[in-house]
């Protein structure tokens, strides 16, 4: 485990995998409670995709560092998770917040995995290739909803704008540099400024079509937040809940 957490590439992969895990974890909780049956089913399919993508990436790390993917997913210390505070931002079962949050993350992950896939590692590239078509599907599906509900007018537009405003402040956390055990260097920053510019371009174009506005800023490179293991309080709650059953009998098969 220590070897993995001290490896720059592994930490970069973990940042995406942990985003996917926690996003899937929070969103799968909506299954059965969505605003309409058809979208409840679709959103649940996409949270299964997120969890599956996390697993694909944990399996990559598991193979490389001889670890059980479930141990990577469930048994790290809280500060060794590299997800950002946006993915764990509580939506309080407000569909607009859930939607906006998932969409902002999905666009980011799409761009991030595209870059990850170009790194010189055949296994990792193959895994990113498997994830990417599903990621595009998610970006399209969520973007469609942002446009629909944003441009619907009245109550709907107001709720969507409120949701963008609600998450705007934590959205930059997506771009924090991951890994509290690493020295800062360009390798795992992975072209942070370019990434932000490209992401913001896509996001702003869709927001404009939806009739919504949002201002997002790239955090300082030195920022210490979720990606460096200093998580918001709600992350710890979510992790505790996620590991509750597993802690009944540590080491047991489930």
């Amino acid at each position, binding site marked *: 485990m220590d070897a993995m957490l001290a490896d720059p590439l592994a930490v970069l992969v973990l940042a995406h995998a942990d985003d996917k895990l926690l996003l899937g974890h929070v969103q*799968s909780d909506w299954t059965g409670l969505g605003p309409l049956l058809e979208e409840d089913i679709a959103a649940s399919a996409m949270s299964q995709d997120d969890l599956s993508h996390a697993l694909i990436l944990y399996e990559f790390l598991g193979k490389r560092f001889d670890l059980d993917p479930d141990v990577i997913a469930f048994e790290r210390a809280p500060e060794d998770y590299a997800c950002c505070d946006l993915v764990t931002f509580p939506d309080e079962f407000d569909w607009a917040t859930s939607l906006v949050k998932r969409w902002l993350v999905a666009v980011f992950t799409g761009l991030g995995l595209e870059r990850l896939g170009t790194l010189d590692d055949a296994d990792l590239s193959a895994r990113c290739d498997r994830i990417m078509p599903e990621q595009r599907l998610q970006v399209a599906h969520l973007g469609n909803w942002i446009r629909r509900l944003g441009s619907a*007018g009245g109550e*709907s537009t107001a709720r969507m704008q409120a949701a963008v405003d609600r998450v705007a402040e934590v959205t930059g956390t997506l771009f924090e540099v991951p890994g509290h055990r690493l020295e800062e260097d360009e390798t795992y920053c992975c072209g942070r400024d370019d990434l932000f510019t490209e992401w913001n371009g896509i996001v702003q174009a869709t927001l404009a079509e939806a009739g919504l506005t949002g201002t997002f800023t790239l955090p300082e490179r030195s920022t210490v937040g979720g990606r460096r293991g200093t998580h918001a309080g709600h992350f710890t709650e979510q992790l505790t*809940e996620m590991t509750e059953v597993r802690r009944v009998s540590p080491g*047991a098969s*489930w």
Partner: protein
Amino acid sequence: MSGAANPVKPLEMTGNEDPDKLAEFEQRIADGVLIEPGDWMPQAYRMGMLGMAEHHANSEIIGALPEGEWITRAPSMRRKLALTAKVQDEVGHGQMLYRVSQELGKSRDDMLRDLVMGKTKYHNCFNYPAPTWGDIAMIQWLIDGAAIMNQKTLADGAYGPYVRTMNRINMEEAFHFKSGEDMVLTLMSGTRAQKQMTQDAFDRWWPVSLMFFGPADKPDAEQRPAMRWRMKVERNDSLRQRFINRFAPAAMDLGLVINIVTKDEQGLVTSTKPDEGLVLDETTGNWSFTEPDWDEFWRVIRGNGPCNAHRLSLRRFSYEQGGWVRRAIGAGSTSMPPAA
């Protein structure tokens, strides 16, 4: 999961159906011919099928709640994925079954509203709590096992659209049951804490499974419309016997003890003693058993079970909370023509 084995309102003939058409309809059913939506059918049959599919759909939607509580706590990636998919299936089944009733004349919105306002019912077994991960294993093994047995007979019913839907649903229930079986097997091969968790959950769910099929039918059930019209094709007692014959020996082989239990108002077990009435009759191959507490069954179905209020309250929260999305897409401001 099935809702149809619970007592549905008894069907009464309205008395003013054309006797020739009715005779022809009944003859078709007796001949094993399935009814398709364009066919003539008595009003009581139409209303009965509508109510049956609606009750079943309600059960799927409410049935998603107890298991949904455990998605965030599932103990491995695969179990987390499987449980999410399982609960998602229930929502999908609900959607398909509401569609059957929509075609018979009631809007989905009206059905969802009647459900949350307590005007219509859902299967009784979802009014019980699922306080541990062991309950998730038991729900998928016992309750889904019972549901498959029941729905296999429903798929042998007479109403085409319901039969079609049942066949699709059963295919997915097979996954639920297998995954439940795998969980029970894993837990009973595991640590002492896991085995205890499983036995405790079994104590909670075994009596609920026996009640799953509903109380004994009236002696003349075969002559009454529900069975004469093949809305249901097997007696509750007969289904229950088949269930026990299959699951009692399996439970014992797994090392589980089949107990008679008492429960408190929260549905938690307060005392257990082994069911000594559980004996295999070698000649018939049937296991005898102690009848579950039918007074409790009626109490729960009338609304006074451990979780009735909570289930409806969460369902109503979901209905109200999502209203703005349905209003936004229903308002037409985003619509396109019906087809490209």
